[in-house]
């Protein structure tokens, strides 16, 4: 298991983008808004950390939401701040991939309270095309 460290060169206000499929969008009658389900912010099923894209790296590469969502019809795009992740006991580590230079990992246990906080505090970069139940 790789050892990850919180990359402090990533500022607290740096945005972390995560793709949200339509089946992960729910209506929250208490918040009066469509938002991702808490299930949208789990670690990978194989136990590796949660994948995100660093928005500022995308911008440096001249890319943006369209590139993140390319090939994923019907998906929305949600944003968390690095500061929120750290408040929830997570670390944020760069993990550039050949085809994804902005790829990063949010490292840490994704308890229900962490996931719920992510779900309620994130903002839409690309909102869901339609509401699903």
């Amino acid at each position, binding site marked *: 298991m790789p050892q990850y460290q919180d990359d402090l060169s990533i500022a607290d206000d740096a945005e972390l983008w995560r793709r949200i499929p339509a089946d992960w969008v729910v209506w929250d*009658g*208490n918040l009066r808004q469509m938002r991702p*389900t808490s*299930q949208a912010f789990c670690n990978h*099923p194989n136990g590796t950390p949660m994948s995100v894209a660093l928005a500022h790296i995308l911008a440096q590469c001249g890319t943006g939401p369209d590139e993140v969502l390319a090939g*994923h019809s019907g998906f929305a795009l949600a944003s968390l701040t690095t500061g929120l992740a750290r408040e929830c006991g997570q670390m944020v580590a760069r993990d550039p991939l050949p085809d994804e230079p902005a790829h990063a990992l949010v490292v840490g246990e994704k308890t*229900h309270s962490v996931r*719920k906080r992510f779900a309620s505090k994130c903002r839409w970069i690309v909102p869901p095309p339609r509401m699903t139940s």
Partner: protein
Amino acid sequence: MSISLRDCQFVASAAEPPWLGCAGTGVLADGDVHTYRTSSAQGGEALLTGEDQGVEWVIINQSWPEPAWMVPAKQAIERLTQLPAGWDSYGARRIQASAVKAVFELLGCTMQRHSPVPAVVPTATGGLQLEWHTGGIDLEVEATPDGTILMFCDGTSCPTPQEREITQDPTPLAQVIATL
């Protein structure tokens, strides 16, 4: 001696009609209280089998209207079972039959006729999650592929946020659903 529908008629239930594998009690036309367990429920019809004081009895094709939440919940679950591997773009697994079975049984045991329709979402590990966010209550119930059922509740019916396993006893869930 067996008693069939021809001999007695299901009149009323002390609780909500049972659905999909739950146990309950009912009063038959002969006046005795019997325990029963549903074995299937399709299209508003239920096959009930039970045993009371050594007498086997079967009620067949007893019909009652489906509750309003049942059709959309079933449709959502059926649609999610068709999702391919990787449906979330991050390596999610297909929904497992064990989770589907657990959710149907859970709905049958805990929902009331007028309970609000739950949102049904897939989980990346192959499970299902039911969600209600209404009336100041946030209620989420996750059925994992290994059969574990976890309940998360926060809000007016749960002054202190609750996280608990309810695999063996869904009573806490039924209690919260009753307040929705």
